[in-house]
């Protein structure tokens, strides 16, 4: 087909295999890095900061995030792409708005989860990873967490696809499980790159586990298991509340929502009751 045609050719499948390979490589890089770090974590961190583990964690996780972005970004429909900057700013703005309530959580993924619910796991993963990369312009410490953010977006999209957003009470459950996975995977970054967490509340929890003699990675992983599931459960609930407040015509412009019947009571055949 020449580029001057007024119509598009039938959708092609040829390039999609290469993209699938990139996606798998990206996921493998993240998983492999995590396993490597857990197996080789320095037995005695008293010999100095874990530079080796820091470099491996940074390299492996960033490589995984970049591979995922390269695989997903060029095939995202424009209607999804324009939502990524919006999601990113929402992550920050809504995070700050929620922060003003004084609750001890981060709420830094509301936009990512929202996009994942509307546009699917691939878009969610790309949004999460790009969020971290672009936001590192203002706060470079979020850059190493790109892989964890991608995971949150991906899992939120999977949850939406399997219908967990059709029942309002299931959304926080999905968030809780996502929080467990994402928290565990991100723990090595906090432990080896930053040597702790950037909050006084979370820091106190880590201190408590350290006082009981845990290794730094174990202490931070346990802390993540306490904070993250609760945080993500709330974030998923807020995202569900926002999605259900949107009019049908807005949510139904997303093919993912139509195809997988993501939202309850919104089948195209039946008019809204």
């Amino acid at each position: 087909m020449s580029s001057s045609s007024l119509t598009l050719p039938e959708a092609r499948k040829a390039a999609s295999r290469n993209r699938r390979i990139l996606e798998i490589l990206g996921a493998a890089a993240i998983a492999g890095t995590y396993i490597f770090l857990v197996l080789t974590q320095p037995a005695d961190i008293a010999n100095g900061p874990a530079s080796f583990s820091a470099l491996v964690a940074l390299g492996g996780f960033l490589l995984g995030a970049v591979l995922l972005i390269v695989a997903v970004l060029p095939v995202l429909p424009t209607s999804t792409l324009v939502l990524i900057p919006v999601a990113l700013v929402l992550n920050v703005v809504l995070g700050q708005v929620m922060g003003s309530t004084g609750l001890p959580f981060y709420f830094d993924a509301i936009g990512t989860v929202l996009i994942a619910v509307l546009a699917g796991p691939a878009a969610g993963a790309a949004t999460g990873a790009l969020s971290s990369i672009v936001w590192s312009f203002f706060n470079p410490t979020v850059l190493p967490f790109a892989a964890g953010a991608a995971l949150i977006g991906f899992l939120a999209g999977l949850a939406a696809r399997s219908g967990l957003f059709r029942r309002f009470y299931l959304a926080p459950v999905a968030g809780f499980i996502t929080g467990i996975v994402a928290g565990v995977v991100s723990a090595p970054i906090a432990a080896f790159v930053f040597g702790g967490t950037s909050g006084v509340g979370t820091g106190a929890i880590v201190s408590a586990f350290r006082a009981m003699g845990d290794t730094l990675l174990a202490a931070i992983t346990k802390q993540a298991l306490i904070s993250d599931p609760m945080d993500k459960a709330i974030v998923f609930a807020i995202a569900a509340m926002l999605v259900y407040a949107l009019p049908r015509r807005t949510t139904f412009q997303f093919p993912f929502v139509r195809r997988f019947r993501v939202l309850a009571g919104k089948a195209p055949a039946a008019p809204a009751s």
Partner: protein
Amino acid sequence: MRLHPFTALTAAACTAVATTAAASWPLSVAVVVATAVLAARARVAGRVLFAAAVTMAPLCLSLLVLHGLFFPEGRTVLAEWGPARVTAEGLEFALDLATRTSACVLVLLLFSFTVSVPDLVSALAARSVPPQFGFVLASTLTLVPAIAARLDRIRQAQEARGLLLRGGLLSRLGALRLQMVPLVLGLIDDAGIRAQALEARGFGAPGPHTIFRHVEDPPRQRIFRAVALVLAAMAVVLRLLASWPEVASP
């Protein structure tokens, strides 16, 4: 001389990687000081230091409390209160990590506060990075002030309607919904229109693209980038070789 965006990016990234690999607090402090001087010369010292302080202050505090008081691996005990033990090793660990992270954060912030984003976006497009990436980067930076202004407008409109933000946690959470819904709905609708406009203007269409904005890339800067990349790679390799872990056999 004007730096090509990639030159600045390479310099910042390589410095951050090398500092991480070196893991020596005197070097980290030297990087912090050098970055502060460069930031002052570029007249962005205030913004860079403020952004770094916002990020680093809670992290440093947390590190100091965490490792200063609780460091089970520490042997040289300086003070002890119940379960808390101040150890020399713990303090040194906190110092190492705090200076290392500060150095990386500062040098990356110096890059992002001095780079010309339009130059960066067009340089990325010229290297056949997908135009989508440049779009997300540049569009986000445009949207931040626009969305902040919009949230402000929504607050005013709702206050004028008699909606008060007060009371307990639950009622305030409920009130937040009132602000979030119009914000999110308006942004998603606007994004939908923007997507239509972008597609109409050929964005995302397959085929070759050209670039209107021209960015100088002198040969010297290319050489500098190559050298910096090699040096950073050497630093990483040396670190990996020096401390390759022996997987403990059970």
